[in-house]
């Protein structure tokens, strides 16, 4: 596969189509699902896929398609907010420490490196202890866990940018540090951040699913793909579709993000080529 001069290549396009489709489903599900994802029906327990219920029903007679759609909404929203949190906080800290250098930089980076030397999911797990298993807890816990890697990437870029002539020029004509940082340095540091944000969206989605699967994420009855899989466990043998649908949803999303992420990295970050 030769490197595309423009665009993102075939794999990147497949990634965009996958993510785009799922994103549309997630947005639609925020307003409309075929059935109420929470409404119980004891008569309709564990029914296999049919014309009325394309993906069958679960152990409480809830429509699996509606729940998978609502799960997409939940997972995408949580991942989006988490990434937005990590990118905003991480970019601000990264630009400030990289630009100012000195003791602020040293102290912050020591803390940052210490956090990086610890598995992110464990950091999130321990934060969940404090914040409790709920939607806000997940977003905050994962957001804090992923911030240090953003700080590291942004600081590295800023360190090389601050020596460029246009930054010198901005200082020379009397612009303040804050103005130079956010008007001249920040926009030039965004490409690696975009690449990182794509992968991070995937990590978050997977981590949120894992937490929900363990019962430490979004609590039932609100559906997420992770807690749907956890609920499906006892019924797997008799009702395979319960285990297949949420898993395929997670796998397709991750596949889309991995393909898109690889394409973006090839396009914007020649140092980290996957060839």
């Amino acid at each position, binding site marked *: 596969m030769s490197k595309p001069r423009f665009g993102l290549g075939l794999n990147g396009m497949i990634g965009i189509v996958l993510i785009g489709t799922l994103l549309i489903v997630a947005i639609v599900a925020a307003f409309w699902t075929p059935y109420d994802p929470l409404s119980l029906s004891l008569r309709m327990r564990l029914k296999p896929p049919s014309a009325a219920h394309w993906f069958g029903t679960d152990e409480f007679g809830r429509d699996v398609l509606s729940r998978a759609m609502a799960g997409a909404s939940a997972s995408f929203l949580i991942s989006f907010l988490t990434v937005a949190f990590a990118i905003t906080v991480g970019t601000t800290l990264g630009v400030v420490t990289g630009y100012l250098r000195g003791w602020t930089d040293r102290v912050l980076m020591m803390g940052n490196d210490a956090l990086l030397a*610890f598995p992110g999911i464990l950091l999130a797990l321990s934060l969940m202890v404090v914040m409790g298993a709920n939607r806000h807890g997940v977003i905050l816990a994962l957001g804090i866990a992923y911030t240090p890697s953003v700080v590291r990437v942004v600081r590295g870029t800023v360190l090389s940018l601050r020596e460029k002539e246009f930054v010198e020029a901005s200082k020379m004509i009397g612009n303040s540090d804050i103005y130079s940082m956010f008007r001249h340095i920040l926009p030039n540091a965004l490409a690696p951040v975009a690449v990182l944000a794509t992968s991070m969206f995937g990590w978050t989605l997977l981590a949120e699913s894992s937490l929900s699967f363990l019962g430490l994420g979004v609590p039932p009855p609100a559906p997420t793909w992770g807690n749907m899989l956890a609920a499906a466990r006892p019924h*797997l043998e008799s009702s395979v579709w319960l285990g297949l649908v949420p898993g395929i949803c997670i796998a397709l999303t991750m596949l889309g993000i991995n393909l898109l992420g690889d394409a973006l990295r090839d396009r914007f970050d020649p140092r980290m080529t996957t060839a």
Partner: protein
Amino acid sequence: MLGYLVRRLATAIPTLLLVSIAVFALIRLIPGDPVQLMLGDSADPQSVAALRQQLGLDQSMPVQFGLWLGKIAMGDFGQSITTGQAVLPLMIARFQVSAIIVLMAVALAALISVPGGLIAAWRQNKATDIAIVAASTLLLSLPSFWLGLLLLLFFGLKLGWLPVIGYVPFSESPGAALVYLVLPIATLTLIEIGVITRMSRASAIEVLRLEYVTHARAKGVPEAGVLARHVLPNAFAPTWTLIGLILGNLLGGIAVIETVFTLPGFGRLMVDAIFARDYPIVQGCLLFTAVIYVLVNLVVDLCYPLFDPRVTAE
């Protein structure tokens, strides 16, 4: 070598100190009185006072931290609130289960992926390469707990070849233990194959472009020799670093696998402790993981010179 070891250990001190401060602060960040949380609302004042004193909560914060850290340094992680067991032996027993799974899975994955990545790089852009890349990207996209559930469903329930639930300690009967561990190890191996193959392929492609590879080919070294003698040794270093990172991260990610296969491992110990609000165990597990993570990275760094003679331990 010794000097490097000391310096390397010294860089781990800020990490471990920060983690211990965070773990210490954790229990105090939880809204409410930790002692009341631990004992429940119906506890009598006497036992509340006793536990308060036992945990040193009647002292000032820095004193509390010092006392707590001193105990940890002596290997005293306290007792579980729910069962009264000492935390350290409990963690060690559970850790053995997880360590066997993680080590075997990563070793197997590396044995398959490193040659796999090498072959893909060698056949770059040919059908073999495209098939290997597609397979590894697909594996990379599967959530480990879902793959585990699928394998469990197929080999455990449908075919009935392997047990679905249960565990025999390795020390009692290694053979029987392996039967229970086949599926969890297979699950993790498949997931990690995706990650390691991609890294191995990417670094082999970089090396294949270098002049000494052309030179080796030009002087008539057979292709197998070029790959084994010239490409593999030079392409292995980044993969080795990645394997170290994977080992560390799996300690955090193992809980879902242990949940799927109902194994009494380290991850499950921590998750159960979080549910039971058994804070001494939660604190112990976090610290234990941090120490293991630092140690794994240290061992990985120390092994570097074995694979790449240009890197010296100094």
